[in-house]
C-alpha cells in the first residue's frame, strides 16, 4: 500500500467516527424538539410527587377529598344565603301587605261603625276614591272579569300576589311591580283629591278631615311631596333674593363713583352758598340797613330803612310782605343795638 492510500483510509475512518458521534449526540435532541412528540416520550413532572408526599407523611387522596368537601360546603352556604335573602324579601313584602290589609280592615271597620245610618258625603267620597283606585289598579293589572274592583278585591289581589310569590309562581320583582302599581293608583287618587280642592279653605272639608283614615293615609302619602314643594319654594325665594341683591350690588358698584361725585358737588354747592352768604353779610354790614330774604327766590335784599307793607324784591321783583322771623319781637321791630365797632346788622343775619 502506498502512503496516499493509507492516509485516505484514515481520513474516511475519522469521518465515519465523527458522523457516528454526531448522530449519537444530536438525534435525541431533534426528536424532543419535534412538533409531534409521542406521549411516551413526554416529560412527566408529576412523577415522583406521590412518593415524595408519602415520604413527607402526606396523604394526597385524603387532601383531595377534604378540598372537595370544602367546595361543597361553600356551595351549600351560598345557596342557603340566597334562600335567606329570598325569604327576607318575601317577609318584607308580607309586612307591607299586612300594613295595607290593616289599613283596609280599619277602613272597613270604620265604614261598618256607621251602622244603619244613611251614607254620608264622607262615605260617598271614600267610595268614590276606592272605586277610582280600583279602576286604576284594574287597568294596571291587565283587566279583570269584574268591571270595577272593590276593597275586598284589592285585598284579595294583594293576598294572591303574596301567595304566588311564596309558591314561587312570581318573582319578588313582579310582586313589587304589583304593589308599585297600587301605589301609582293612589297617586292618581291624590291628583283627583287635589282637583277636588282638598285642604283648601273653600274646598271639600271631608277630604282632609281630622280623624278620617283615608285622609290620614293620603296625607302621609302627600307629606313627602309637600316637604319637597316647600323646600323648592324656599330655595326659589332665596335664589330670587340673592339674584336681586346681586343686581342691587352691581348697580351700587357701578354707580359708586357717581355717588361720591354727588356728595362732592353737594359740599361744593354748600361752600359756595356759604361764601356768597358771607359776602352778602359783609356787604350789608358795610352798607348798613335791613336784610330781607325773599320767599320766592330765596335771595337776600338789603334796604337802608326798615321796609313796611308790601314792597318788591330787589332780586326777582316779586311782591314781598314783611314777616318778621322772631314772633316775640315787637312790631315794628326795634333796630338791634349794634356793637361798638360794627354798627349795622340785618334781620336775617
Amino acid at each position: 500500500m502506498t502512503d496516499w492510500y493509507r492516509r485516505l483510509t484514515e481520513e474516511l475512518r475519522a469521518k465515519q467516527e465523527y458522523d457516528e458521534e454526531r448522530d449519537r449526540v444530536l438525534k435525541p435532541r431533534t426528536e424532543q424538539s419535534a412538533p409531534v412528540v409521542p406521549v411516551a416520550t413526554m416529560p412527566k413532572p408529576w412523577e415522583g410527587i406521590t412518593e415524595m408526599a408519602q415520604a413527607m407523611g402526606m396523604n394526597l387522596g385524603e387532601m383531595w377529598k377534604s378540598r372537595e368537601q370544602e367546595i361543597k360546603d361553600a356551595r351549600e352556604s351560598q345557596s342557603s344565603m340566597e334562600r335567606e335573602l329570598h325569604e327576607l324579601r318575601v317577609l318584607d313584602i308580607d309586612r307591607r301587605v299586612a300594613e295595607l290589609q290593616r289599613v283596609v280592615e280599619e277602613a272597613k271597620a270604620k265604614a261598618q261603625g256607621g251602622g244603619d245610618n244613611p251614607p254620608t258625603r264622607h262615605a260617598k267620597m271614600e267610595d268614590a276614591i276606592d272605586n277610582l283606585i280600583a279602576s286604576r289598579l284594574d287597568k294596571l293589572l291587565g283587566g279583570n272579569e269584574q268591571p270595577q274592583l272593590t276593597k275586598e278585591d284589592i285585598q284579595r289581589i294583594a293576598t294572591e300576589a303574596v301567595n304566588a310569590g311564596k309558591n314561587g309562581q312570581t318573582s319578588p320583582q313582579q310582586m313589587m311591580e304589583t304593589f308599585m302599581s297600587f301605589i301609582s293608583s293612589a297617586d292618581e287618587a291624590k291628583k283627583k283629591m287635589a282637583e277636588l280642592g282638598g285642604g283648601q279653605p273653600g274646598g271639600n272639608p271631608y277630604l282632609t278631615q281630622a280623624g278620617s283614615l283615608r285622609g290620614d293615609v293620603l296625607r302621609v302619602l302627600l307629606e313627602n311631596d309637600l316637604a319637597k314643594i316647600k323646600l323648592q319654594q324656599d330655595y326659589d325665594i332665596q335664589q330670587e333674593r340673592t339674584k336681586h341683591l346681586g343686581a342691587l350690588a352691581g348697580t351700587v358698584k357701578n354707580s359708586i363713583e357717581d355717588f361720591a361725585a354727588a356728595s362732592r358737588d353737594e359740599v361744593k354747592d354748600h361752600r359756595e352758598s356759604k361764601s356768597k352768604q358771607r359776602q352778602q353779610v359783609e356787604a350789608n354790614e358795610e352798607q348798613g340797613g335791613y336784610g330781607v330774604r325773599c320767599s320766592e327766590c330765596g335771595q337776600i335784599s338789603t334796604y337802608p330803612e326798615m321796609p313796611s307793607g308790601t314792597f318788591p324784591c330787589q332780586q326777582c321783583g316779586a311782591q314781598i310782605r314783611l314777616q318778621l322771623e322772631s314772633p316775640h319781637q315787637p312790631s315794628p321791630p326795634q333796630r338791634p343795638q349794634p356793637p361798638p365797632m360794627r354798627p349795622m346788622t340785618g334781620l336775617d343775619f
Partner: protein
Amino acid sequence: MERQAKAYIAAYCKGIPVEDFRYAAENNMDILLNLLKQVFLKPGEEKSARNKAAPYRHLVERLATTETLIRITSAVAPEHAKVLRQHTDWFSRQLRSVVRQVFDS
C-alpha cells in the same frame, strides 16, 4: 356682605376728599340722606324702593351701625374714619335718619 361694604366704602371715600368730608361733618350736612334721596328714594319710586329694600332690613340694620362702619372705613380709608370718629354724633344721626327713611317711612 361686609366685604362688599368695604369695597363700596373704599370707592366712595376715594371719590370724596377728606376736606370735603370734614366740611360736611362740621357743617352738619345731610350728605347721606341727600344721597339716599337722589339714588334710591327717587321721587315717585319711594314705595317700590322701600318694598325692594324690606327683605334686607336685617342685613342693613346689622351692618349699618356706627361702630361697624367706622371699623370698616378705618380699614380702607383711615383719614375719613378719623373724621367719622371726631364727629360720631353727626354720623350716628345720619345713619339713623337713613335707616328710618328707608324702612320706617
